[in-house]
């Protein structure tokens, strides 16, 4: 199940608004499953500026490369450095320890334009057909 406190994109990323006003970003359960065993994560640098909808990194399985697209705009304040040595955490905990980075939001209202858990589940189901 996709957590109801997250917002989702059509590129299968999620964003979670934190109490301090930052947003944590990751890839969805569906995305990690489609990719298979993740062997490498190309992470953004702290201080980098992300623009909603634009690429900011990549996750790779043995077979393929999947670009990461920013669900919302902002400045990177933290990256999940555990993924450098153990990118497979994304497979085991895409909504938990497998988060990608945390950003200072440029415009918190951007999150309202993303899908909620129910809409995302419907989107994934429709995409499968």
């Amino acid at each position, binding site marked *: 199940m996709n957590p109801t406190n997250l917002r989702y994109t059509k590129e299968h990323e999620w964003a979670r608004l934190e109490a301090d006003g930052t947003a944590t970003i990751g890839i969805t359960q569906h995305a990690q499953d489609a990719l*298979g*065993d993740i*062997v*490498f994560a*190309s992470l953004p640098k702290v201080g980098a500026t992300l623009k909603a909808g634009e690429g900011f990194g*990549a996750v*790779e*399985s*043995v*077979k393929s*490369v999947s670009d990461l697209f920013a669900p919302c705009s902002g400045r990177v304040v933290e990256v999940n450095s555990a993924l*450098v040595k153990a990118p497979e955490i994304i497979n085991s905990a895409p909504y938990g320890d497998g988060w990608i980075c945390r950003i200072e939001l440029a415009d918190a209202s951007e999150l309202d334009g993303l899908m909620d858990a129910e809409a995302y589940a419907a989107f994934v189901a429709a995409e499968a057909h």
Partner: protein
Amino acid sequence: MSSLIRTPFYERQAALGARFVDFGGFELPVQYKAGLVAEHKAVRERVGLFDVSHMGEIDVRGPDAVAAVNALITNDLEAIADGQALYTCMCQPDGGVVDDLVVYRYSREHVFICCNASNRAKDFAWITTHLEGATAEDQGDRWAQLALQGPQAPALLQGLTATPLAPIKRYWFTEGEVAGVPAIISRTGYTGEDGFEIYVPAERAGEVWDALFAADPALQPVGLGARDTLRLEMKFALYGNDIDATTSPLEAGLAWVVKLKKADFIGKSALEAQKAAGIPRHLVAFLMDGRAPARAGYPVLDASGTIVVGKVTSGGPSPTLGRNIGVALVAAGHHAVGATIQVEIRGEAAAATIVKAPFIQPS
């Protein structure tokens, strides 16, 4: 969108949890439930089964089919015996590769060719256009093909056939029966491991699949994902990636299948000229220093990272080595074993070392 072709094994694969992809117009498993790495390791350590029914088959008959086919290929069919198979390139007049093939010599009058799925139509047209004194028949739809690969493949297959397998040496073949189904049993493969490629009539192919799994319930079905990592660890060329109409077999490190001393063949004079003038590019194997995988299409720069000297043609993580490996086509002078190159990954240079292929020594 044209509909994808399913092989006779599709339902059985779906039942095993296969995830399918479009490969050359065929709907084939990219991986099964076990996953790519487990499938890869099963082949290296035990035995795995691949559906390679997408490969094309072309049957050539004529009073001297051997000579007729020999005029189209770079390797020498006159140098092998009846009952032997040959890996070869088939070239254009300019030396570019039309396809890489396995050619089976039944007799002077009968030659059987296995070609790449993506080149089936092109190869058949090429062969019918250029073949003299023999006739070719496209039998791609008639045959299903299974590859049983890994150290335990001979024992498993022997349990299903009365044909003694021990006398069939590497790159020899015979006709026989597998699980009661008439088959061509060929000691060939695309993994570097011991094993067989088994050609069976498409309409009875399911019986062979079922018999193999009944004989070894732990038999690992293997998808295209692991097929690619297994062949990459051996630096076996993949048509469309490492070789194509713009590369010559000499550039691709396939001089061992180019026999310039044999009778004339299409592309011979161009390859002779290239050899005399100096081979302009070389397909090299490389090992990445870092964690980021190199992928097909990434630019390759010289050691200082200033000049583009080529591009990656295949690349990714090696499940056996736990390191990132790849193959690149680079300009002459930048291809020495031991040399450092830089692979541009998402705009950043990552160091790699050119190494001798294969990357691994199979069991």
